[in-house]
């Protein structure tokens, strides 16, 4: 089954029109020694069989629908209203290509324009593009944009140690060939902003901070932009969209570029992808921004319409002078995010953010009262918090899963060796009170069973 409509008669007629005897004759340019290799692949399956096999495979997993999950760390389990997937499943959206022919792509183009508008509203910025692959790559592209705004002369990049460890890794991969000086996040963990500020110098292209940071804490970034701008560098803020229903938008406190992972709105966990990176900046810098951008214009009859615009920034025009090669992005994920945002509206987004906030604080308070557990509470947090546990996180998580059917938090020792026994927990609106109570009881039991 190859989804092929050709009958034997079709093939014969088509071969005759071409003037060859056999289909194989069309491949004479392929070196004979390599032509028509054997592919050692599993036997083909019918639709019914493959679905049964996939269902069985998917059931080898423990999923968060059956096991309450307290993991966050950059991927968040929120309830996605049914209307989102219903609309995404319109194949006029999902089987379309990039909107290269605007006259017959107004649906995609207008939906991206609306998405851009919503990202600007969320972040407090002036311009947003059509998306990047994920939060990590949008962060890396923000760094590259800052280098470009600095006309390639500024080579220092300051990364906060509380920026997501995988985002920091991706920044390093993307800039491997650029001979930069990346500082701030190694070797020791100093989450104090002053420590980062002290690294600013005239060679600095940008300083990158995340809020809520990787530990869930809300950073007070008031005044930081002035310090960064004083040396002529750019302030890049990495943030999370649900938190922006409650927290001050980075545009308010002077960020030059705002990026982040948009998955939490409209997009499921999907084991890490596809997600989407949102990317917003100031109007004055728009020509240095990578990625696709939709603009409003008029058609030949004066009606409003939308087109891909400012394409002279892009790879296919600038070729080797382009700062990014991105073309395909995450358009459908951006559409999902926009539909979810529109479904929530201004009231709904605030309510959602507060639900997460209150539930996470309730859980943190209850855990803090347990013997042997300590909750980091020196800074305000949003919906994630750090718990110092009386035993290794792996051992506690095993106990939670085996005895209580709970998926515990993220083991911070994976990325921060001095944070052994530190767990990052996330609570969103999908977690019910009795599940928080179960977690609290399970942690208490784990102290007795595991730590003993």
């Amino acid at each position, binding site marked *: 089954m190859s989804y092929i409509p050709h009958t034997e008669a079709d093939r014969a007629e088509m071969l005759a029109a071409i003037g060859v005897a056999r289909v194989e004759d069309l491949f004479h340019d392929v070196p004979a020694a390599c032509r028509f290799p054997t592919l050692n692949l599993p036997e083909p399956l019918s639709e019914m069989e493959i*679905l049964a096999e996939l269902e069985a495979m998917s059931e080898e997993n423990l999923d968060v629908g059956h096991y309450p999950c307290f993991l966050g760390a950059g991927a968040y389990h929120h309830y996605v209203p049914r*209307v989102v997937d219903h609309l995404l499943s319109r194949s006029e959206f999902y089987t379309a290509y990039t909107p290269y022919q605007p006259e017959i792509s107004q649906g995609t183009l207008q939906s991206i324009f609306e998405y851009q508008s919503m990202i600007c509203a969320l972040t407090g910025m002036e311009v947003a593009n059509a998306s990047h692959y994920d939060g990590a790559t949008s962060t890396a592209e923000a760094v590259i944009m800052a280098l470009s705004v600095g006309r390639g002369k500024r080579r220092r990049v300051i990364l906060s140690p509380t920026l997501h460890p995988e985002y920091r890794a991706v920044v390093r991969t993307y800039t491997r060939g650029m001979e930069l000086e990346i500082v701030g996040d190694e070797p020791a963990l100093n989450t104090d902003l002053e420590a980062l500020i002290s690294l600013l110098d005239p060679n600095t292209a940008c300083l990158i901070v995340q809020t809520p940071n990787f530990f869930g804490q809300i950073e007070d970034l008031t005044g930081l932009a002035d310090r960064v701008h004083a040396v002529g560098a750019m302030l890049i803020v990495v943030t999370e969209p649900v938190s922006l229903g409650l927290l001050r938008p980075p545009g308010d406190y002077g960020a030059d570029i705002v990026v982040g992972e948009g998955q939490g709105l409209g997009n499921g966990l999907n084991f890490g992808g596809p997600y989407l990176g949102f990317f917003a900046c100031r109007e004055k810098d728009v020509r240095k921004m990578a990625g696709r951008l939709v603009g409003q214009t008029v058609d030949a009859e004066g009606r409003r319409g939308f087109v891909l615009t400012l394409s002279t920034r892009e790879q296919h025009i600038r070729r080797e002078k382009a700062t990014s090669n991105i073309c395909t992005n995450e358009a459908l994920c951006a559409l999902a995010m926009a539909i979810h945002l529109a479904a929530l509206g201004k009231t709904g987004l605030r309510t959602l953010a507060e639900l997460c906030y209150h539930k996470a604080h309730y859980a943190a308070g209850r855990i803090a009262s347990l013997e042997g557990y300590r909750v980091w509470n020196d800074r305000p947090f949003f919906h994630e918090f750090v718990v110092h546990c009386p035993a290794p996180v792996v051992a506690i998580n095993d106990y939670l899963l085996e005895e209580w059917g709970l998926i515990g938090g993220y083991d911070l020792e994976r990325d921060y060796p001095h944070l052994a026994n530190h767990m990052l927990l996330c609570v969103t609106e999908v977690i019910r009170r009795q599940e928080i109570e179960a977690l609290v009881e399970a942690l208490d039991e784990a102290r007795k069973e595991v730590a003993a």
Partner: protein
Amino acid sequence: MKANRGVPCAGVEPLIYELSKPGRMATTLPALDVPQAELPPAELIRDEVDLPEVDELTLVRHYMHLSQLNWAIDVGFYPLGSCTMKYNPKVNEAAARLPGFALTHPYQEVHTVQGNLRLMYELQEMLKEIGGFAGVSLQPSAGAHGELTGVLIMRAWHLDRGERQRTRILVPDSAHGTNPATTSMAGLEVVEVPSDKRGNVDLEVLRGLCNETVCGLMLTNPNTLGLFEEQLTEVVALIHGCGGLVYGDGANLNALLGIAKPGDLGFDVMHFNLHKTFSTPHGGGGPGAGAVGVSAALTPFLPGPIVELRRCRESDCGCDCAAELDEEAVCFHLTMPEKSIGRVKAFYGNFAVLVRAYTYIRMLGAAGLRQVSEMAVLNANYLKSRIRDLFPVSHDRTHMHEFVVKGIVPGAPGVHALDIAKRLIDYGFHPPTNYFPLIVPEALMIEPTETESKEVLDAFAEALRAIRDEALTDPELLHQAPHTAPVRRLDEVRAARQPILRWQGA
């Protein structure tokens, strides 16, 4: 008029912001079931977010109307060259939405996501087999992302061997537009290689460029003219001979499934476009997936994590796989290759896209995949035979899965490829890729794919014939086209000169 059928009024839909009315909402949220906590201090809190407020029906109608303004594979023929707009099987969508897959968190312990890891492992293995590679990483999110990954791998391999001076990437002028941008992102220098008269890489020029500064060659094969490189063996030998590596742009792999393995042909690294070749939908511009395959020498440099299979007996894997009961028990783990270039994204790849590609490959098997490429190439050559008397074909050779014609009409000098493209819309077809590749003036690049029937190809050819005739009799009809789309030609100059990039109120 096909593009806007179902839309009762003219094609223009208000912005969602214009449908907003204070107090409306299209979602319900659970009541708070815990005591309220004190909110953060006021200086950390925002004013309200300027989002639209709509009820659910208004929301649904808005996006339904928008969807109806779109062309899509499920609406009609979409012969965009080098984009491989083939049918996207519906079973793929069901597979990707299975809750056991969709509801898993990327940071779950590996023993709780063995199904996911098994699928990824098997997909890695199948792509290795199809491509003739020793290693595959599923991490990259799209073709251009895979390209960047591949070039970084090549550079890392040279650096590991102490060859810092290899900073030049050779890029044929028939390559995809992203190749030069990718090269400069990787901090390397682009050197363009011209094509010869038959559309191949100019071997003599290439010979002159091959020296100890070459990092590698980025070769799209079949190239963007739809031609298989006739001197591929010599090209590869020249590059390898000077110590360089050969990168394959896999965007055109739909011509080669079961026809030839790029690894056998001498490619050291290649990205796969799972959203082209392996039928996952394009989503209006993503998500895609750009897995990268490499030869044995390059496997230690792959981005990670990748999935590794371990025999439980032989490893302290920590799984609950009952190793003591089952000699053969295996389990799957995430691992970082030894000299990895690092991560190219967070987590492991666009997993839900991988599920779709896996489903497709398992349903087709080896024979089905070969049939895909055979019929893709048959369709392209057949369509070419139907229109070659209408528009000049760039090269008089057997084509692979696509071909390029010049969108010019003798006797109608004012008619351009753009006019022909736009007029096709009125006939109910998506235009081909136009003005690319750059080396063919007035290019129309046509890729029918294997999933289109002879009837569709015939109708498309007839439309082109009618348009050619109109070009001679009534060229203004073409200049003004499209006439039946939801909107007429859009003022792109105005969009760029006076950018309006977000809604700013009435």
